[in-house]
């Protein structure tokens, strides 16, 4: 090959066609799809987040629990906030606190934060979606539990030995 010759080489029409197809799929379609879903889709990782003092957040969650507490299960309070309200969850080694009882098809505003380590907020069985939690960040996201059922949660980011015990529960009623 002569020096520099590779840049002047013509490209076979089939390969040119593939580059055009690939560019359309990757750069145009895939990138546009993310925006289209922001406009039309109902599931977006979109909300607000605040720096929050862990102790202050813990107190906020405790107020919420006392206000709407309806019972107890597995040593955890069960909390049934009214539809449309703000609901709170706290993640710490090794629990999701409290257990929530919600109404299907109603919109809630979820507040969730970790007060110690990084945790994974995962509604896993049945599978809904997953969010990343940081110590000291309060996530605020509206959401709508659509189908009734019992939803189990498990932490899905390693938070130390004992991580496997970090479970939670959301009950969605008709």
């Amino acid at each position: 090959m002569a020096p520099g010759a590779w840049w002047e080489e013509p490209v076979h029409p089939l390969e040119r066609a593939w580059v055009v197809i690939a560019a359309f799929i990757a750069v145009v379609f895939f990138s546009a799809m993310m925006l289209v879903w922001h406009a039309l889709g109902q599931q977006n990782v979109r909300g607000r987040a605040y720096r929050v003092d862990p102790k202050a957040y813990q107190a906020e969650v405790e107020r919420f629990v006392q206000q709407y507490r309806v019972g107890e299960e597995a040593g955890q309070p069960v909390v049934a906030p009214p539809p449309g309200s703000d609901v709170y969850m706290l993640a710490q080694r090794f629990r999701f606190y409290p257990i929530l009882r919600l109404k299907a098809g109603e919109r809630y505003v979820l507040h969730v934060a970790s007060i110690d380590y990084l945790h994974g907020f995962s509604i896993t069985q049945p599978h809904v979606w997953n969010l990343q939690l940081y110590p000291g960040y309060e996530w605020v996201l509206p959401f709508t539990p659509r189908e009734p059922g019992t939803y189990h949660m498990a932490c899905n980011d390693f938070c130390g030995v004992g991580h496997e015990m970090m479970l939670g529960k959301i009950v969605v009623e008709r």
Partner: protein
Amino acid sequence: MAQPAEARTCPVTGFRVHRAAEDLVKANAVAAVVALLLGGLAAIVVLFTRWMGAFPPEAFYQYLALHAWNMLIFWILFFEIALLYFAGSILLNTRPASPAVGWLAFALMVLGALMVERAILTNPLNHLSFQPYPPLRGTPDFYLGTILFAVGALLGVGLFFATVHKAYREGTHTGPLPLVVFGAFVAAVLAVATLLVGALVFVPAFLWSAGVLPELNPFLWKLAYWGFGHPSQQINLAAMIAVWYLLAQLTVGGRTPSEKVSRAAFILYLVAINLGSAHHLQTEPTGALSVGWKWINTGYLMHLAVLGSMIHAFAVPGSVEVGQRLRGYRRGLFDWLVRGPWHNPAFSSLVLSVALFGFLGGTTGVIAGTEQLNMKWHNTTAIMGHFHGTVVAGTTLAFMGITWYVLPLIFRRRVVAERWARWQPWLFGIGVGLLVLAFMQLGVRYGLPRKQPDIFRFRGLPLAFEWPAEVYALLTVAGIGGLLALLGGGLFVALVVATVLFGKRLTDDELRRDYALPKAAANPGHGVKELPAVPGTFVLCLVFAAFFLLMYLGNYWNLSRAWPIGG
């Protein structure tokens, strides 16, 4: 005893092989295989815990860390450094600029790796996984080990650049870099960026662990960590693709249909690929990272790199098709593929590596990295599915493939039990393929968390729950796949070790006779005028594109059925 010659001419390839380069390649390749063995042994605990809960959670976390560090960092980086010395010195017919620096790099890497292994093994309750996010804190020697290893690897990369420079200065190489060296060069540039960011995260972590810094910001640390964590895998990507082109050349005398297009694709990696790391931060709090930031990085910028990969997805099979057509396999669309040299394990490794990486590893990377789709993938076993499809079925299998040439041509030993070697890529490739498919289904459909050792009992806690029956069935598929992959990996290590220790030494005449490269045809030409067209590859790529779009849209459909969020 006579001093061994300073350099020899390879009877098979005609390259000038300098002893200093050869020794460095050998040492790094041996260290790589040792790491592969350790990582594979650790995989036994990981596999049987996830499959059937065979080991306690503490052991799982510990061996998972060992598995990840050995496989993702030590095996791959030692092999890549060997590859850089091979590309910079042997392919350019020049002596390494400074063998002493090469040995210093090697010593630092070995020392660093041993410190990390020791830190993981001696701290059963205080060791860190591959994502060692503060405030989780490891012991100082853990961070120090990673720093030493990274400094060693940086020295090795520096030696590569110096050697390429020397080849031009002394005129042992003129004209543009050969495509394989060009790819290795891109990998080396990515490596410099990656390892510097590695220092940026691990030096403060070391100081924090040693009590010098009072605290680390967990958010900024994770953000910066992924400037190291994922780019370290992009080095693999570039190196793997360089190896693919090399394998196409060695196994069937292949050459790329267009030097221009292949090189442009490598340049796209250089420009855009490390920005793709932002896809690790798709489900981060949006007050901390804006939607716009996520979209710019993982939308347009990352997809430029995806375009680069899709171009290689044409050019690599295209290289094989060109080679085969030049060798006379011209009938129909796929005669070139069907009648490939399947008896050669390097060829099977190449084909399986390209196919599995493309269909499983690559597509899932794009999907998992898409802002909204990530909500279904984040930290589930589907992510393990993705990176076993890339690093294991792709990179590792490609590196295994090239090893079948390293053994006769560099170690000059005949591969023992060559018949077994023919089965090795299939055992390994099919095993990893099954594992990947099962993990993806388990993650996306059933939300099975990664790094979860006790999904069967949850320590008997009151909030423990049962999984649907399909989960157990899929875990069995993953388990059997993992077992096949372990057997394939074990067979690879066994054959390599046996060959290096006991393989029959090859003379120049034997090498010329038994390892002759395919007659690269009478046609020495390049480019569209002189090379045959590749219609078979074009059809395969259309099938791939259809599969890709189907998977992508299928994932959006799946997401659309989840609870509305963020509205």
